[in-house]
């Protein structure tokens, strides 16, 4: 189930100005979370279609980003007060993707200029939006840095430089690892072609991450029929408790 070579969705985006276009394939545009889900790997591959010969002033670079659903996050900082460590300052980050991975064909700073990053919000710090911390906090950057640090440690944020292989300036491929702790949602996938740090072409698609089977059923039940779900949980608990007691009594006889 890991990498199903399913939907080879060939879609051509016609940007009138762009001389180079992306033709994309995904190993799978759907990730199913079932009971034994243990992470997944998505193969992103494609080709560059061009009308004229490739310009040879700057080499072609490819950047692939996969971004999970965004949510607001509170980042708290501990400080020592009266001898014990307590949460003191908190900064709310308005939008932070639950998952964010970047794969590039060259170091990010070479493949992408600062201004283009700002425009397309490609690098991890740009993908997070934080508008203003409370007045009393002067170092709000350290809070977003902490967010990135914690998320990177659990592989929820990944910067994989030089992991996109480009052949003959035409074919490119990379693999994006999705961690086991994955939330549901539409994972926005963007592919950028850059030359000399400037984006020359962009292609957007989505990977659908969905719970299936029992996971789906339980999740829906817990939200829509919470009372029945609660009773079911209690029923299971009581039944298991009784069963264990009965089995142990039987063994003793």
């Amino acid at each position, binding site marked *: 189930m890991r990498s199903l070579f399913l939907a080879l969705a060939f879609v051509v985006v016609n940007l009138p100005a762009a001389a180079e276009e992306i033709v994309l394939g995904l190993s799978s545009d759907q990730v199913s979370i079932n009971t034994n889900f243990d992470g997944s790997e998505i193969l992103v591959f494609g080709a560059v279609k061009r009308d004229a010969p490739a310009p040879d002033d700057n080499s072609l670079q490819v950047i692939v980003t996969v971004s999970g659903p965004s949510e607001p996050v509170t980042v708290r900082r501990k400080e020592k007060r009266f001898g014990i460590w307590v949460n003191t300052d908190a900064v709310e980050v308005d939008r932070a993707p639950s998952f964010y991975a970047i794969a590039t064909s060259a170091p990010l700073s070479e493949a992408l200029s600062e201004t283009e990053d700002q425009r397309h919000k490609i690098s991890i710090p740009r993908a997070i939006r934080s508008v203003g911390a409370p007045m009393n906090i002067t170092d709000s950057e350290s809070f977003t840095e902490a967010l990135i640090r914690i998320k990177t440690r659990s592989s929820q944020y990944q910067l994989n430089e030089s992991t996109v292989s480009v052949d003959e300036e035409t074919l490119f491929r990379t693999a994006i690892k999705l961690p086991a702790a994955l939330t549901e949602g539409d994972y926005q996938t963007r592919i950028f072609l850059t030359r000399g740090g400037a984006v020359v072409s962009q292609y957007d698609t989505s990977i659908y991450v969905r719970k299936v089977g029992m996971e789906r059923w339980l999740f829906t039940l817990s939200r829509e029929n919470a009372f029945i779900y609660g009773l079911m949980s*209690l029923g299971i608990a009581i039944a298991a408790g009784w069963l264990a007691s009965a089995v*142990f009594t039987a063994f003793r006889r």
Partner: protein
Amino acid sequence: MQIYLPIAEVSVNAFLLLGLGGLVGVLSGMFGVGGGFLMTPLLFFIGIPPAVAVATEANQIVASSFSGVLAHFKRKTVDLRMGTVLLIGGLIGAAIGVVVFNYLKAQGQVDLLVKLCYVVFLGVIGGLMFMESLRAIRNTKKGKPPARKKHNWIHGLPFKMRFRVSGLYISVIPPVVVGVAVGILAAIMGVGGGFIMVPAMIYLLGMPTKVVVGTSLFQIIFVTAFTTMLHATTNYTVDVVLAVLLLVGGVIGAQIGTRIGVKMKAEQLRILLAIMVLAVCGKLGLDLLLQPSELYSLGAAGGH
């Protein structure tokens, strides 16, 4: 074997959870504590979101307590009358506790309060129990007879009731008060309250240790069932897959624990519980005193 939990939205090792459940189940059966005060921090540690850990833990305690109480029913070591009186107090206390909890949440710093509550109560209870059981063990070694139950002011209160299984004839006021107090603390600290209830029954009410365990379990079933329903319907944080994994280990562990507990002397049981309580207290205390390796933490927005 990795299992994806539908509500917690993380993937965990099934055998690790079975093992944890079993370990806590043994302790639960031995001491009559639900084990929530041990399990909840362990679940945090393996990466289960705190809200899911607390709610699911309540569900698991229902199972292990039920399994344990059945074993105690067979030995006739459950004082149903006392359990019911404590339960009435407990439910009143839990309702008050939820109100207090929400008030403190609005003030911020509820996490700190919960931790301080843990450290103070675990420390005091563990310390007192440790000293007392040590003295009892020494006395038995010297061959002194155990001290007779003293008549104190508690025996002068009205509304007397006979608790035959416990061998007590006391007023219902102290058990109700104990129930209320434990209920309040249980709601604030998010546990069944067994580790407070057990010492309170032994030292405040003067119940025999053997009866205390079964009666405590009986009471815990209802309090945690109530908590489970509350969490399932308001926060949607009960993860039934996680609960099943924990309780399969837990119910088996509880049966084994009950059998170990029966074979042990009351003082030994008490001193072990005291050591365990002190260990958890020490761990939580150190967390507050030592500098954490990561000063920042992430939380869902909208919280305090």
